[in-house]
């Protein structure tokens, strides 16, 4: 199946670097963006199967980035990650097409399982079309 390309978007530099490292150890190809604009720029240039998106970021917040991502053709699957869990925002994210919604501190195995599932789902959906 090859390696999955994943984009991590989070403004907490330390957090995102250690997360990237741990996901790489689990066999993912990881790119990192520190804000929404940076993420969208990367998404225009590269293909990703999955995006892990922090909900609360300065500037464009995670839900806005999600909306932008889902406007594109053949969008990647998005997993929302938050340190500030709110029911309304969580449901809005899911209704806008997020694959899942996880809460910090996130269990690294759980995140990597969800990413695998998300990427497999995307592959299946593509075959189906």
């Amino acid at each position: 199946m090859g390696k999955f390309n994943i984009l991590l978007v989070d403004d907490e530099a330390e957090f995102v670097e250690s997360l990237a490292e741990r996901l790489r150890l689990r066999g993912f190809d990881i790119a990192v963006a520190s804000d929404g604009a940076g993420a969208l720029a990367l998404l225009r240039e590269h293909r990703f199967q999955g995006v892990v998106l922090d909900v609360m970021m300065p500037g464009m917040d995670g839900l806005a980035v999600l909306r932008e991502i889902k406007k594109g053709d053949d969008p990647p699957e998005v997993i929302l990650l938050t340190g500030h869990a709110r029911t309304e925002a969580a449901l809005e994210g899911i209704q806008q097409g997020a694959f899942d919604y996880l809460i910090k501190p996130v269990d690294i195995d759980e995140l990597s399982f969800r990413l695998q599932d998300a990427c497999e789902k995307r592959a299946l959906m593509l075959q189906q079309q």
Partner: protein
Amino acid sequence: MLRILRNIIDAFKGVSGLPEAAQDDEELRRAFKLRYMQFRRLLNANDKALKTISEMESVQAGNKPFGMSFIRSRCALLFVNVYQIIQHLDTLSGGRHQALYDTFGRLQETISPLLESAVPGEDAELVLDLTAIDRRHAEVAGVKMASLGDIARQLDIAVPAGFVITSAAYHRFMQHRRLQEEIHQRIQSHDGEALDRLYELSSVLQQLVMAAEVPPEVVAAIEAAVDKLRKQVDGPLALAVRSSGVNEDLPGASFAGQYRSLLNVRPGHLIDAFKEVVAGKFGATAMTYRFHRGLRDEDIVMCVGCLQMVDAVCGGVVYTRNPLDIREDTIIINAVWGLPKMVVDGRSAVDHFEVARQAPHRVRERRIGAKTVAYRCLAEEGICRNELLEDQSHAPSIDDDQAAALARMAVDIENYCGGPQDIEWAIDSDGHIVLLQCRPLSVAPAEAQASDADAAPVSEAEVAHDAAAGEEGAVHAVLLHGQVTAARGVGAGPVRVLKREADTMRFADGEVMVVQQSLPGYAVVLHRAAAVVAEHGSVSSHLANVAREYQVPALFGVEGAMSRLADGQTVTVDADGLKIHDGKVDALLRGRLRAPHVMAGTPVFDTLAQIMPHIAPLTLLDPDAPTFAPAHCTSLHDIIRYCHEKAVQEMFAFGRDNAFPMRSSKQLVVDVPMQWWILNLDDGFSDEVTGPKVRLENIASIPMQALWQGITKVPWQGPPPIDGKGFMSVMFQATRNTALVPGVRSSYAQRNYFMIAKNYCSLMSRFGFHFSTVESYVSERVPENYIIFRFKGGAADDFRKMRRIQLIAEILEEQGFAVSLTEDALRARFEDFPMEVMCHRLQIVGYLTMHTRQLDMVMSRNAMVEHYRQRIKSDIEERFGRPPEQPAAGPQQRSSPSIQGQA
């Protein structure tokens, strides 16, 4: 999203709409795969939702503190997962479950407002003059400043001039540039309760506050107040800046000494001082205290009092009562030279006066301390410690007249406030007494003795036992003896004998629960019980655990309790002394205590208590009942249960109705006299199987193989010998209930159906009159592994059915399942273990489904029950042994099993 959903729905429609048309196998295979993936995601969300409910339940029942961020994050997780479950089911069924969204919406509308606490005082003025404040301003000025302003108005007592930076200003500050959100996020991301991590978090939060900008409008309001104050005072203005929290009057929340006061601050530094006092909210002690008292972070709104600094000649603290004995008729005054801070800090000896409450407030006792230092204001800013000269050091800091005047003020304040007070005061250079602050005095409760369970000395209990055996022994006969103290303590009340779980409905508050076995299902009413008595049961059983958690005395191994004790009879259960006494033995009950949840009465606990009824109770029990419908879902748990049932049905119907030769139901080739049918959901076969039958070696499903081993390991020896009554009972039931009569049942019901994939298996089976389902997911992903076992029915009467079901429950519990019983339905769940352990438990479940099916017919006699219990246990021991690797720590994150959290 809708577009994607539509795609999936269309994909499924395409398949089911064209049963045998020219769709090629590859396409069908993909359709199955896609469908199974959707089902997997549903199961996954189902699992996460149930775990979240379990976690919330154990937090509610347990005795560990939790915060508002816990409740919010768990609710968010729960809502997201339940919503996803509904979405997946709706997709699987091609849009036939829209009604669930309404039910979901209703529950969300009920729960969400409870999670958002109203923020008080947000619209108030940013700054209020102290003279404009009375006690009604507690929400905007904080409790301390509101009472200071109130007392100044009502009692003609001097207080310093000043103003309060209100809760409105605080909220503006916290909302400015999302400071509050940033703080919430840091708190929520913080994991672990380790002290070093707490200090780290505390320091990070305080730095955040200090670095934050105070909004310009707040700065302007403060500066205007300072200008106004400057005109009222002679000479240069200096301020005492004090915290004044909203909600400081919550039960037990005395907050003594946790928050900051800054003394002798120049107006130019007031904004920093304001931030410093606000940052004090995140001091490690204050945070720990809030956490343990169940106060939400937002419950503590910091108002800040800015009062003219009193350059005190002397000062101190008055207690209007002796805190160790409030009945004592004395006012206690501690006084020092200089600022009263020295008394609060406890750095130096003080002068101690005990003064009569009654006028003329005679000084009854006087101890003049050797005071070596005093706090005084520095000329520029801040305070310093001054060495005292020899003659001043030994001189009393106040005279008897001043002591009497302080006592008079103290009595006035206590009378006005309606309770003992802790009063800070100063005497200025003109000799006037100035009240600086006052707050309710924490006093030891009247019955403070023996209130600590662990510290209660054994000897005291011994004395009580002797008393019961001695003088009272003749009056209160010992009725029964037990063998095991399952939970310590003594309890008395009327007996209630529970023969089955349904009897818990009749259980009244304060009764003594008497049961045959310590089954987990009885735990639902345990918190209302005075004591628990069981004929059989172990200290490590769930019931015993819950009894200890609730501190309900529990005595197990009491032979003959069920027959010797009668409903309504009052007894005293002495779990420590292993005896049950007739009547109420006061000598034993003395010193008994029931500690409430550490969080009881706090806003956080109340919030959880309010939302749980909409989350946890499972009321949809019978999938065949007409009430098994979205409109009857009254909790999120109901929705979860409903969706799970319907999803399994959808998967089953799809596989059954779809004429796809590779996947349609196939009969398993076996040499037992029963029919086993298999539906392959995705990758359950090792090769493509084209014929109508499949052999065991072609089955690639890990959980099915394990279950099958259990089913076939011990040959079934035919129905057990039925005693005459048992057979009559079966016949009687059969005449009443046609669904039980063979031949009347539908053709599907007679078969045993497996639905399988490589890592998934569900078995629906009807053996005679018994209906059971096993569902399991087993893979390398340990946290996603689970087994759900449900068992229902039986032809014999209720009593026999219950006995059988209790036997199964007992065995499953010993194997680490979380079991719940409702009437004659059993639900058990086992999860989060590695594959080998999961497979071992599946074998046991397989064995139990085969070998317990007709046990209820022989369950009338105790000897038979015991015989079968022993046989089943020895079978399990011999044939299956211990699992290959019994992990020492058990499931990683989840704590205690839930008593209700079943699928």
